């Protein structure tokens, strides 16, 4: 019996010895708890990637990029969401925390290296010289694929940098961008997690509105006013902000061909249009220099129109667009998705004032009653 017991214990110990390392590896893979370097982690989560950028160059990554230059807020927010913040060596001027409000960048080393994208040659030179450990044979430059970036891109490619461009036209393409950046940085698992969240967010708002019986004409009419170089435009049918606005459950009245003859692709703002389109809500481009209230006064809007100014990261491609959709949904349907923080604060302030007034009234009545009784 004793022998049998010893044999069972011995077998159990052997089994334990065999199982514990396996369990350890599995934990690490699932939760990333082990202190792997980016390279170790990336290598385990990487397959070679080839992309063709906007100037037609095929760029191949045989190993995960360790460092990145992020020349666009969308890339900066995506890299941060992919937990690649330490990889960023250089950012564009709009990404700097003072412009974008991205708090993670406040004490980030790259904050002291923010440049206008137009300075393509300077940026190329800094990166080619190995700034912040940047290796041009391995690492990556992310930049928007706008036509006017072509010169900057060519300047970088001339010095042998790997330049990857994105120019998403739809929310799905924004999701794909995250997948591709994840693939280049060796963060496929994290990218999959984020993209799943983005897809779910896209479906969540329409489903919730449907469940609450909001469809068709009962949806909120919302206009996005873009602002560039002092010029305002509405319509913006192809703009990413309008795409987000629609995901959040809004209807863009500028799409209404029946009302205005034809849909407005992009319309230089005529103040009468803002009045006649009669939106319930207006979302303002973060680049607009004034406040929402200043805009309301400037444009002679009706009192019933609610105006909100988006923050810099809200209408960017990538994970931060989920914040934008949430903000827009709350602004348009506070009863369903909850109030925005500042509105809650205003509401609380209003309630506090009401309480103070009630207490004052109670004290006044009590004082009058006391005086009357004394007489």
């Amino acid at each position, binding site marked *: 019996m004793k022998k049998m017991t010893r044999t069972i214990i011995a077998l159990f110990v052997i089994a334990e010895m065999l199982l514990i390392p396996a369990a350890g590896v599995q934990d690490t893979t699932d939760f990333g708890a082990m202190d792997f370097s980016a390279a170790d982690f990336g290598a385990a989560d990487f397959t070679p990637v080839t992309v063709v950028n906007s100037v037609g160059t095929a760029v191949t990554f045989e190993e995960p990029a360790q460092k990145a230059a992020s020349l666009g807020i969308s890339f900066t927010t995506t890299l941060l969401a992919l937990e690649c913040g330490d990889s960023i060596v250089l950012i564009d001027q709009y990404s700097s925390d003072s412009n974008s409000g991205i708090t993670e960048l406040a004490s980030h080393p790259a904050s002291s290296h923010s440049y*206008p994208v*137009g300075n393509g040659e300077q940026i190329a030179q800094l990166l080619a010289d190995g700034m912040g450990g940047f290796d041009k044979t391995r690492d990556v430059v992310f930049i928007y694929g706008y036509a006017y970036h072509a010169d900057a891109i060519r300047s970088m490619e001339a010095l042998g940098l790997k330049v990857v461009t994105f120019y998403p036209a739809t929310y799905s393409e924004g999701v794909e961008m995250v997948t591709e950046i994840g693939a280049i940085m060796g963060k496929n698992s994290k990218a999959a997690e984020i993209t799943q969240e983005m897809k779910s967010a896209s479906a969540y708002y329409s489903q919730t509105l449907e469940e609450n019986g909001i469809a068709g004409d009962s949806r909120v009419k919302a206009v996005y006013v873009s602002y*560039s*170089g*002092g*010029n305002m*435009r509405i319509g913006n049918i192809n703009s990413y902000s309008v795409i987000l606005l629609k995901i959040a459950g809004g209807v863009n009245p500028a799409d209404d061909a029946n*009302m*205005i003859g*034809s849909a*407005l692709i992009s*319309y*230089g*703002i*005529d*103040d*009468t*249009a803002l*009045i*006649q*389109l*009669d939106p319930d809500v207006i979302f303002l481009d973060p*680049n607009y*220099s*004034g406040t929402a209230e200043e805009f309301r006064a*400037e444009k*002679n809007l*009706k009192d019933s129109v609610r105006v909100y100014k988006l923050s810099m990261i809200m209408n960017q491609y990538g994970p931060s667009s989920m914040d934008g959709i949430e903000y827009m949904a709350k602004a348009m349907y506070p009863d369903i998705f909850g109030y925005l923080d500042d509105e809650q604060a205003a509401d609380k302030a209003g309630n506090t004032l009401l309480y103070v007034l009630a207490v004052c009234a109670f004290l006044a009545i009590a004082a009058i009653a006391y005086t009357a009784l004394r007489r």
Partner: protein
Amino acid sequence: MKSTGSVGRKRAKVLAATVCLTGLLALFVMLDLAQAFINLSFQDALFALFGYGNETHIIIVQKINGPRVIMGCAVGAGLGISGAVMQAIFRNPMASPYILGLSSGAAFGAALAMSFPISVIPLFVTVPVFAFIFCMVTMFLVYSISRVGGRVPTETLILCGIAVGSLFSALVSLLTYLAGDRMMGIVFWTMGDLSQNGWQNSMIVVPLILAGSLIMVARGRELNAMMLGDAHAKDLGVDVKKVRLEMLISSSLVTAAAVAFVGVIGFVGLVVPHILRIILGPDNRAILPLSMLGGAAFVILCDYLSRALFADLGILPIGILTSLIGAPYFIYLLRRRRHEVGWN
């Protein structure tokens, strides 16, 4: 008898021109008031003007189109009379606020304010203030440089205006090049824009333009004498130096007030007085007030067209249209009736 008949015919012409221009101005004002993203009927616009009708129409007519029309009238009137006065005092058909560099000076001031915004002062304050300051600075600069031994020869003044104007234009181009994201704002301002004006701006601009214009209209007789030449004017008892300085300051003030809030609107000061001179002859007593009416009508017509013609794109900057309409018409008139422009 012949002389009396000629004077009578001239008076009748002036009266007819006054009635025509007033009628045209009224028509263009109504068109512009009714112009919107979805156009209003004349009846709706008229009702809304007096506070009747639905809320949307009232907001459009009283708060958006109303100030725009008033500003357009004031700016057109100001630019029209300034051009007429400058042509008279310099006895040169090419003289206008643009030739003397005043508009370029104002444009530089506005571009400077847009390129280097002062954080505590909003742009809608700094842009007109800087434009106004630089317009006046340009006028004094041009006048001082061209002053030789207490005299200001017309040719020197105009050449000096062209030189200083070119300098400021180059500086505006430099600022535009350096402005980055703000470039579009500067470019747009240099093309003229009536849309960013509320009643507050009108309340500043209208009195300034009216005051300056009244001073100029009151000098019609002296300007007639000066068009005959300085010596003749002196013989007729005109203090040429004083009147010229007074007219320069008044026209600069009016131009600065006009340009400071709406940007650069070209050709009004050149075309309108010329057309009137072709029709009515050179008498400044009639030309000056009618240039105000004509300038107002021309600017309001252009504003209406800038909104109506390219409705799918939004609003076209008005300065583009004033030049597109003004320049070919001016060339046509010069070619057809060159001998009747009143300068021979």
